[in-house]
Protein backbone atom coordinates (compact mmCIF):
# COMPACT_ATOMS: atom_id res chain seq x y z
CA UNK A 1 0.00 0.00 0.00
CA UNK A 2 1.40 3.40 -0.93
CA UNK A 3 0.42 5.14 2.32
CA UNK A 4 2.16 2.50 4.35
CA UNK A 5 5.34 3.04 2.36
CA UNK A 6 5.13 6.75 2.95
CA UNK A 7 4.75 6.21 6.63
CA UNK A 8 7.75 3.91 6.76
CA UNK A 9 9.87 6.42 4.88
CA UNK A 10 8.76 9.16 7.25
CA UNK A 11 9.56 7.00 10.20
CA UNK A 12 12.98 6.17 8.86
CA UNK A 13 13.81 9.78 8.07
CA UNK A 14 12.67 10.79 11.55
CA UNK A 15 14.87 8.10 13.00
CA UNK A 16 17.84 9.34 10.98
CA UNK A 17 17.15 12.90 12.03
CA UNK A 18 17.07 11.86 15.67
CA UNK A 19 20.27 9.89 15.24
CA UNK A 20 22.10 12.81 13.70
CA UNK A 21 20.68 15.12 16.36
CA UNK A 22 21.96 12.96 19.15
CA UNK A 23 25.35 12.77 17.48
CA UNK A 24 25.60 16.44 16.63
CA UNK A 25 29.23 17.50 16.84
CA UNK A 26 29.72 20.72 18.77
CA UNK A 27 33.46 20.89 18.91
CA UNK A 28 36.06 19.09 16.88
CA UNK A 29 39.82 19.23 16.96
CA UNK A 30 41.79 18.54 13.81
CA UNK A 31 45.44 17.47 14.00
CA UNK A 32 45.91 19.47 17.15
CA UNK A 33 49.51 19.70 18.33
CA UNK A 34 50.75 21.54 21.38
CA UNK A 35 54.42 22.13 22.12
CA UNK A 36 55.56 23.82 25.29
CA UNK A 37 59.16 24.47 26.19
CA UNK A 38 60.36 22.12 23.44
CA UNK A 39 58.24 19.31 24.80
CA UNK A 40 55.40 17.84 22.77
CA UNK A 41 52.36 17.69 25.04
CA UNK A 42 50.09 16.10 22.47
CA UNK A 43 50.32 15.55 18.75
CA UNK A 44 47.78 15.02 15.98
CA UNK A 45 44.86 15.04 18.36
CA UNK A 46 41.56 14.46 16.55
CA UNK A 47 38.65 14.45 18.95
CA UNK A 48 34.96 15.14 18.54
CA UNK A 49 32.94 16.61 21.36
CA UNK A 50 29.29 15.89 20.72
CA UNK A 51 25.98 17.03 22.06
CA UNK A 52 25.30 15.33 25.38
CA UNK A 53 28.93 14.30 25.95
CA UNK A 54 30.71 14.50 29.26
CA UNK A 55 34.42 14.18 28.60
CA UNK A 56 36.91 13.84 31.38
CA UNK A 57 40.39 14.78 30.25
CA UNK A 58 42.70 12.64 32.35
CA UNK A 59 46.42 12.29 32.71
CA UNK A 60 49.29 12.90 35.12
CA UNK A 61 50.41 16.40 36.14
CA UNK A 62 52.14 18.14 33.28
CA UNK A 63 50.50 16.00 30.62
CA UNK A 64 48.89 19.04 29.04
CA UNK A 65 45.32 18.89 30.34
CA UNK A 66 45.08 22.60 31.13
CA UNK A 67 46.90 23.46 27.89
CA UNK A 68 44.35 21.45 25.94
CA UNK A 69 41.42 23.13 27.68
CA UNK A 70 42.90 26.60 27.14
CA UNK A 71 43.42 25.83 23.46
CA UNK A 72 39.85 24.52 23.18
CA UNK A 73 38.58 27.71 24.82
CA UNK A 74 40.52 29.83 22.33
CA UNK A 75 42.68 31.38 25.05
CA UNK A 76 45.87 29.84 23.70
CA UNK A 77 46.86 29.04 20.15
CA UNK A 78 47.88 25.50 19.23
CA UNK A 79 51.27 24.87 17.63
CA UNK A 80 49.45 23.21 14.77
CA UNK A 81 45.92 22.21 13.92
CA UNK A 82 42.49 23.78 14.16
CA UNK A 83 39.42 23.67 16.35
CA UNK A 84 36.02 23.72 14.77
CA UNK A 85 32.79 24.76 16.42
CA UNK A 86 29.69 23.71 14.45
CA UNK A 87 31.97 22.79 11.52
CA UNK A 88 33.66 26.18 11.33
CA UNK A 89 37.06 27.24 12.59
CA UNK A 90 36.61 29.02 15.93
CA UNK A 91 39.04 31.77 14.97
CA UNK A 92 36.68 32.81 12.19
CA UNK A 93 33.67 33.08 14.47
CA UNK A 94 35.10 34.00 17.86
CA UNK A 95 32.09 36.02 18.95
CA UNK A 96 29.61 33.23 18.19
CA UNK A 97 31.86 30.64 19.80
CA UNK A 98 32.25 32.69 22.98
CA UNK A 99 28.48 33.11 23.22
CA UNK A 100 28.25 29.33 23.30
CA UNK A 101 31.12 28.74 25.68
CA UNK A 102 31.51 28.78 29.43
CA UNK A 103 35.11 28.37 30.52
CA UNK A 104 36.06 28.19 34.18
CA UNK A 105 39.82 28.02 34.56
CA UNK A 106 41.74 26.80 37.55
CA UNK A 107 41.72 30.40 38.76
CA UNK A 108 38.16 31.40 39.64
CA UNK A 109 38.42 35.00 38.34
CA UNK A 110 36.84 36.35 41.51
CA UNK A 111 37.96 39.78 42.72
CA UNK A 112 38.78 39.86 46.42
CA UNK A 113 37.76 43.53 46.70
CA UNK A 114 34.19 42.88 45.52
CA UNK A 115 31.39 41.13 47.37
CA UNK A 116 30.20 37.68 46.34
CA UNK A 117 27.13 39.18 44.71
CA UNK A 118 29.04 41.90 42.84
CA UNK A 119 31.47 39.29 41.54
CA UNK A 120 28.76 36.98 40.29
CA UNK A 121 26.70 39.77 38.78
CA UNK A 122 29.75 41.02 36.88
CA UNK A 123 30.66 37.58 35.56
CA UNK A 124 27.09 36.90 34.49
CA UNK A 125 26.70 40.26 32.76
CA UNK A 126 29.98 39.69 30.94
CA UNK A 127 28.52 36.57 29.37
CA UNK A 128 25.11 38.01 28.60
CA UNK A 129 23.09 36.94 31.64
CA UNK A 130 22.73 40.40 33.09
CA UNK A 131 19.18 40.04 34.37
CA UNK A 132 19.64 36.85 36.34
CA UNK A 133 19.05 36.69 40.05
CA UNK A 134 22.55 36.52 41.52
CA UNK A 135 21.26 36.16 45.08
CA UNK A 136 19.26 33.06 44.24
CA UNK A 137 22.20 31.58 42.36
CA UNK A 138 24.48 32.17 45.33
CA UNK A 139 21.94 30.42 47.52
CA UNK A 140 22.06 27.48 45.08
CA UNK A 141 25.77 27.05 45.68
CA UNK A 142 25.45 27.35 49.45
CA UNK A 143 26.48 30.97 49.82
CA UNK A 144 23.23 32.19 51.30
CA UNK A 145 24.00 35.01 53.77
CA UNK A 146 27.42 35.55 52.22
CA UNK A 147 26.18 37.74 49.34
CA UNK A 148 27.50 40.93 50.88
CA UNK A 149 30.77 39.49 52.15
CA UNK A 150 33.93 40.54 50.36
CA UNK A 151 35.31 37.63 48.38
CA UNK A 152 38.70 38.29 49.99
CA UNK A 153 37.23 37.32 53.35
CA UNK A 154 35.76 34.07 52.07
CA UNK A 155 37.59 30.75 51.80
CA UNK A 156 39.12 29.35 48.62
CA UNK A 157 36.22 26.91 48.27
CA UNK A 158 33.67 29.67 48.68
CA UNK A 159 35.47 31.76 46.06
CA UNK A 160 35.30 28.86 43.65
CA UNK A 161 31.62 28.46 44.44
CA UNK A 162 31.01 32.07 43.39
CA UNK A 163 32.46 31.26 39.96
CA UNK A 164 30.70 27.90 39.79
CA UNK A 165 27.34 29.55 40.46
CA UNK A 166 27.42 30.46 36.76
CA UNK A 167 26.73 26.79 36.00
CA UNK A 168 23.28 27.26 37.49
CA UNK A 169 22.53 29.98 34.95
CA UNK A 170 24.55 29.28 31.84
CA UNK A 171 22.92 27.63 28.86
CA UNK A 172 26.10 27.78 26.78
CA UNK A 173 26.44 24.69 24.60
CA UNK A 174 30.01 23.95 25.60
CA UNK A 175 31.24 23.99 29.18
CA UNK A 176 34.98 23.74 29.73
CA UNK A 177 35.79 23.25 33.39
CA UNK A 178 39.38 23.03 34.59
CA UNK A 179 39.52 21.28 37.96
CA UNK A 180 36.06 22.49 39.04
CA UNK A 181 36.13 20.46 42.26
CA UNK A 182 39.29 21.97 43.76
CA UNK A 183 38.63 23.05 47.36
CA UNK A 184 34.94 22.03 47.13
CA UNK A 185 33.49 19.79 49.83
CA UNK A 186 31.89 16.39 49.12
CA UNK A 187 28.34 17.71 49.08
CA UNK A 188 29.28 20.53 46.76
CA UNK A 189 31.04 18.11 44.41
CA UNK A 190 27.87 16.03 44.23
CA UNK A 191 25.75 19.09 43.39
CA UNK A 192 28.15 20.14 40.64
CA UNK A 193 28.23 16.61 39.22
CA UNK A 194 24.45 16.62 39.07
CA UNK A 195 24.55 20.00 37.33
CA UNK A 196 27.04 18.63 34.78
CA UNK A 197 24.84 15.61 34.11
CA UNK A 198 21.76 17.81 33.80
CA UNK A 199 23.54 20.05 31.30
CA UNK A 200 24.61 17.06 29.21
CA UNK A 201 21.06 15.67 29.33
CA UNK A 202 19.75 19.01 28.12
CA UNK A 203 21.94 18.82 25.04
CA UNK A 204 25.09 20.48 26.33
CA UNK A 205 28.62 19.25 26.14
CA UNK A 206 30.93 19.28 29.16
CA UNK A 207 34.70 18.94 28.99
CA UNK A 208 36.42 18.81 32.35
CA UNK A 209 39.58 17.81 34.11
CA UNK A 210 39.64 16.40 37.59
CA UNK A 211 41.80 14.01 39.55
CA UNK A 212 38.80 12.74 41.48
CA UNK A 213 36.62 9.87 40.36
CA UNK A 214 33.46 11.23 38.82
CA UNK A 215 30.35 9.92 40.49
CA UNK A 216 28.33 9.80 37.31
CA UNK A 217 26.85 6.89 35.32
CA UNK A 218 29.89 5.39 33.63
CA UNK A 219 28.12 5.13 30.27
CA UNK A 220 27.78 8.92 30.22
CA UNK A 221 31.40 9.82 30.85
CA UNK A 222 34.11 9.29 28.27
CA UNK A 223 37.74 9.64 29.18
CA UNK A 224 40.35 11.33 27.07
CA UNK A 225 43.72 10.10 28.28
CA UNK A 226 46.77 12.29 27.84
CA UNK A 227 50.13 10.69 28.57
CA UNK A 228 53.13 12.44 29.96
CA UNK A 229 55.59 12.51 27.08
CA UNK A 230 59.29 13.16 27.19
Amino acid at each position, binding site marked *: MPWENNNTIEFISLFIALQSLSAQIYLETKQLTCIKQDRILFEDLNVQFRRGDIIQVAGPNGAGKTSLLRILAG*LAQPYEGTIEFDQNNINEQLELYRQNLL*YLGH*LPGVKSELTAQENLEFQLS*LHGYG*NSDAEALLADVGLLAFEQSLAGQLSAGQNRRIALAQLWQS*NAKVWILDEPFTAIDAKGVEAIEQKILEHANNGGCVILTTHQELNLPSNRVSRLELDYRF
Partner: protein
Amino acid sequence: MEQGNVLSYFNLFKLVLSRDLKIALRHRDDVLNPLLFFIIIITLFPLGIGPEPQTLAKIAPGIIWVSALLATLLSLDRMFKSDYQDGALEQLLLSPYPSFIWVLAKVIAHWILTGIPLIITAPVLAGMLNLPTESFLATFWTLLLGTPVLSFIGAIGAALTVGLKKGGVLLSLIILPLYIPVLIFATSAIDAASYGLPYGGQLAIIGALLVGALTLTPFAITSALKVSTN
Protein backbone atom coordinates in the same frame (compact mmCIF):
# COMPACT_ATOMS: atom_id res chain seq x y z
CA MET B 1 21.18 30.37 21.57
CA GLU B 2 19.05 32.24 24.05
CA GLN B 3 20.88 34.96 25.89
CA GLY B 4 19.38 36.39 29.04
CA ASN B 5 20.22 40.03 28.67
CA VAL B 6 22.64 41.19 26.03
CA LEU B 7 24.49 44.31 27.11
CA SER B 8 24.78 47.30 24.88
CA TYR B 9 28.37 48.43 24.29
CA PHE B 10 27.78 51.48 26.43
CA ASN B 11 26.46 49.36 29.31
CA LEU B 12 29.45 47.04 29.03
CA PHE B 13 31.72 50.07 29.16
CA LYS B 14 29.92 51.35 32.28
CA LEU B 15 29.98 47.92 33.88
CA VAL B 16 33.76 47.48 33.54
CA LEU B 17 34.49 51.11 34.42
CA SER B 18 32.42 51.06 37.59
CA ARG B 19 33.87 47.70 38.61
CA ASP B 20 37.44 48.97 38.27
CA LEU B 21 36.66 52.19 40.15
CA LYS B 22 34.94 50.24 42.90
CA ILE B 23 37.91 47.93 43.30
CA ALA B 24 40.31 50.85 43.40
CA LEU B 25 38.27 52.75 45.98
CA ARG B 26 38.29 49.70 48.25
CA HIS B 27 42.04 49.47 47.83
CA ARG B 28 42.92 53.08 48.40
CA ASP B 29 46.71 52.96 48.74
CA ASP B 30 46.94 52.03 45.06
CA VAL B 31 45.27 55.32 44.17
CA LEU B 32 47.15 57.47 46.67
CA ASN B 33 50.59 56.06 45.92
CA PRO B 34 51.17 57.72 42.51
CA LEU B 35 49.68 61.01 43.71
CA LEU B 36 51.92 61.13 46.79
CA PHE B 37 54.88 60.22 44.60
CA PHE B 38 54.02 63.13 42.28
CA ILE B 39 53.73 65.61 45.14
CA ILE B 40 56.89 64.42 46.88
CA ILE B 41 59.10 64.56 43.76
CA ILE B 42 57.97 68.09 42.99
CA THR B 43 58.53 69.29 46.55
CA LEU B 44 62.03 67.80 46.53
CA PHE B 45 63.22 69.92 43.59
CA PRO B 46 63.25 73.31 45.39
CA LEU B 47 65.14 71.63 48.23
CA GLY B 48 67.68 70.21 45.83
CA ILE B 49 68.38 73.18 43.57
CA GLY B 50 67.67 76.08 45.87
CA PRO B 51 64.66 78.34 46.18
CA GLU B 52 65.53 81.05 43.59
CA PRO B 53 62.18 81.92 41.99
CA GLN B 54 63.63 82.50 38.48
CA THR B 55 65.41 79.16 38.29
CA LEU B 56 62.39 77.29 39.56
CA ALA B 57 60.00 79.05 37.19
CA LYS B 58 62.27 78.15 34.26
CA ILE B 59 62.36 74.44 35.00
CA ALA B 60 58.84 74.14 36.44
CA PRO B 61 57.12 72.81 33.26
CA GLY B 62 59.76 70.12 32.89
CA ILE B 63 59.56 69.15 36.56
CA ILE B 64 55.77 68.90 36.54
CA TRP B 65 55.67 66.85 33.38
CA VAL B 66 58.55 64.50 34.19
CA SER B 67 56.97 63.88 37.61
CA ALA B 68 53.62 63.19 35.94
CA LEU B 69 55.32 60.68 33.60
CA LEU B 70 57.01 58.88 36.47
CA ALA B 71 53.87 58.88 38.62
CA THR B 72 51.90 57.35 35.74
CA LEU B 73 54.64 54.80 35.15
CA LEU B 74 54.50 53.82 38.80
CA SER B 75 50.80 53.07 38.55
CA LEU B 76 50.87 51.21 35.22
CA ASP B 77 52.05 47.91 36.57
CA ARG B 78 48.83 47.23 38.43
CA MET B 79 46.52 48.03 35.51
CA PHE B 80 46.12 44.39 34.42
CA LYS B 81 48.19 42.60 37.07
CA SER B 82 45.51 41.66 39.57
CA ASP B 83 43.09 40.62 36.83
CA TYR B 84 45.81 38.43 35.39
CA GLN B 85 46.64 36.86 38.72
CA ASP B 86 43.11 35.95 39.77
CA GLY B 87 41.90 34.78 36.35
CA ALA B 88 39.49 37.67 35.74
CA LEU B 89 41.46 38.63 32.63
CA GLU B 90 40.72 35.26 31.03
CA GLN B 91 37.03 35.80 31.66
CA LEU B 92 37.19 39.26 30.08
CA LEU B 93 39.03 37.86 27.06
CA LEU B 94 36.40 35.15 26.70
CA SER B 95 33.41 37.46 26.85
CA PRO B 96 31.55 37.59 23.56
CA TYR B 97 31.78 41.38 23.41
CA PRO B 98 34.46 43.27 21.45
CA SER B 99 37.56 43.65 23.58
CA PHE B 100 37.89 47.26 22.39
CA ILE B 101 35.08 48.30 24.74
CA TRP B 102 36.30 46.79 27.97
CA VAL B 103 39.94 47.67 27.28
CA LEU B 104 38.84 51.27 26.74
CA ALA B 105 36.89 51.15 30.02
CA LYS B 106 39.88 49.78 31.94
CA VAL B 107 42.28 52.40 30.57
CA ILE B 108 39.84 55.22 31.27
CA ALA B 109 39.37 53.91 34.81
CA HIS B 110 43.14 54.05 35.19
CA TRP B 111 43.18 57.63 33.94
CA ILE B 112 40.39 58.66 36.33
CA LEU B 113 42.36 57.17 39.21
CA THR B 114 45.80 58.54 38.34
CA GLY B 115 45.45 61.28 35.71
CA ILE B 116 42.68 63.32 37.29
CA PRO B 117 44.32 63.57 40.75
CA LEU B 118 47.48 64.84 39.02
CA ILE B 119 45.49 67.45 37.08
CA ILE B 120 43.81 68.64 40.28
CA THR B 121 46.99 68.95 42.34
CA ALA B 122 49.20 70.35 39.58
CA PRO B 123 48.14 74.04 39.92
CA VAL B 124 49.05 74.05 43.62
CA LEU B 125 52.44 72.54 42.88
CA ALA B 126 52.93 74.88 39.92
CA GLY B 127 52.37 77.80 42.30
CA MET B 128 54.94 76.35 44.64
CA LEU B 129 57.46 76.24 41.78
CA ASN B 130 56.73 79.90 41.02
CA LEU B 131 55.34 79.17 37.58
CA PRO B 132 53.91 82.41 36.11
CA THR B 133 50.14 82.54 36.48
CA GLU B 134 49.73 82.87 32.67
CA SER B 135 51.02 79.30 32.37
CA PHE B 136 48.54 77.80 34.80
CA LEU B 137 45.88 77.38 32.17
CA ALA B 138 48.39 75.88 29.73
CA THR B 139 49.54 73.42 32.41
CA PHE B 140 45.95 72.40 32.99
CA TRP B 141 45.21 71.88 29.29
CA THR B 142 48.40 69.93 28.58
CA LEU B 143 47.74 67.66 31.54
CA LEU B 144 44.10 67.21 30.61
CA LEU B 145 44.98 66.18 27.06
CA GLY B 146 48.31 64.55 27.82
CA THR B 147 47.68 62.28 30.83
CA PRO B 148 45.12 60.09 28.99
CA VAL B 149 47.75 59.58 26.26
CA LEU B 150 50.13 58.39 28.98
CA SER B 151 47.52 55.92 30.25
CA PHE B 152 46.74 54.56 26.78
CA ILE B 153 50.34 54.13 25.62
CA GLY B 154 51.37 52.83 29.02
CA ALA B 155 48.61 50.23 28.89
CA ILE B 156 50.33 48.58 25.90
CA GLY B 157 53.47 48.12 27.95
CA ALA B 158 51.47 46.97 30.98
CA ALA B 159 49.68 44.40 28.83
CA LEU B 160 52.93 43.14 27.30
CA THR B 161 54.62 42.69 30.67
CA VAL B 162 51.63 41.46 32.69
CA GLY B 163 52.76 37.85 32.58
CA LEU B 164 56.29 38.59 33.74
CA LYS B 165 57.30 38.23 37.38
CA LYS B 166 59.42 41.38 37.40
CA GLY B 167 58.25 43.36 34.41
CA GLY B 168 58.81 46.80 35.98
CA VAL B 169 62.20 47.55 34.39
CA LEU B 170 61.12 46.27 31.00
CA LEU B 171 57.94 48.31 31.24
CA SER B 172 59.94 51.53 31.79
CA LEU B 173 62.25 50.67 28.90
CA ILE B 174 59.36 50.05 26.53
CA ILE B 175 57.16 52.94 27.57
CA LEU B 176 59.33 55.92 28.53
CA PRO B 177 60.70 56.48 24.99
CA LEU B 178 57.13 56.55 23.70
CA TYR B 179 56.27 59.28 26.21
CA ILE B 180 58.87 61.67 24.78
CA PRO B 181 56.60 63.34 22.16
CA VAL B 182 53.99 64.15 24.80
CA LEU B 183 56.68 65.53 27.10
CA ILE B 184 58.20 67.74 24.38
CA PHE B 185 54.94 69.29 23.21
CA ALA B 186 53.50 69.70 26.70
CA THR B 187 56.52 71.48 28.17
CA SER B 188 56.85 73.59 25.04
CA ALA B 189 53.21 74.66 25.36
CA ILE B 190 53.70 75.70 28.99
CA ASP B 191 56.91 77.55 28.09
CA ALA B 192 55.19 79.41 25.29
CA ALA B 193 52.36 80.36 27.62
CA SER B 194 54.78 81.80 30.18
CA TYR B 195 56.13 84.19 27.49
CA GLY B 196 52.58 85.13 26.55
CA LEU B 197 52.83 83.35 23.19
CA PRO B 198 50.02 81.29 21.65
CA TYR B 199 50.30 77.57 22.44
CA GLY B 200 47.32 76.25 20.45
CA GLY B 201 49.59 74.42 18.02
CA GLN B 202 51.22 72.30 20.71
CA LEU B 203 47.84 71.56 22.28
CA ALA B 204 46.51 70.51 18.88
CA ILE B 205 49.36 68.04 18.48
CA ILE B 206 48.76 66.58 21.96
CA GLY B 207 45.07 66.39 21.06
CA ALA B 208 45.95 64.52 17.88
CA LEU B 209 48.10 62.13 19.90
CA LEU B 210 45.14 61.59 22.22
CA VAL B 211 42.75 60.81 19.37
CA GLY B 212 45.30 58.45 17.84
CA ALA B 213 45.90 56.71 21.17
CA LEU B 214 42.18 56.46 21.97
CA THR B 215 41.30 54.83 18.68
CA LEU B 216 44.36 52.67 17.99
CA THR B 217 45.93 51.54 21.26
CA PRO B 218 42.98 49.35 22.43
CA PHE B 219 43.75 47.00 19.51
CA ALA B 220 47.41 46.85 20.46
CA ILE B 221 46.49 46.35 24.13
CA THR B 222 44.15 43.46 23.29
CA SER B 223 46.79 41.76 21.15
CA ALA B 224 49.37 42.22 23.89
CA LEU B 225 46.99 40.74 26.47
CA LYS B 226 46.34 37.74 24.24
CA VAL B 227 50.07 37.18 23.86
CA SER B 228 50.58 37.48 27.60
CA THR B 229 47.85 34.98 28.47
CA ASN B 230 48.79 32.51 25.71
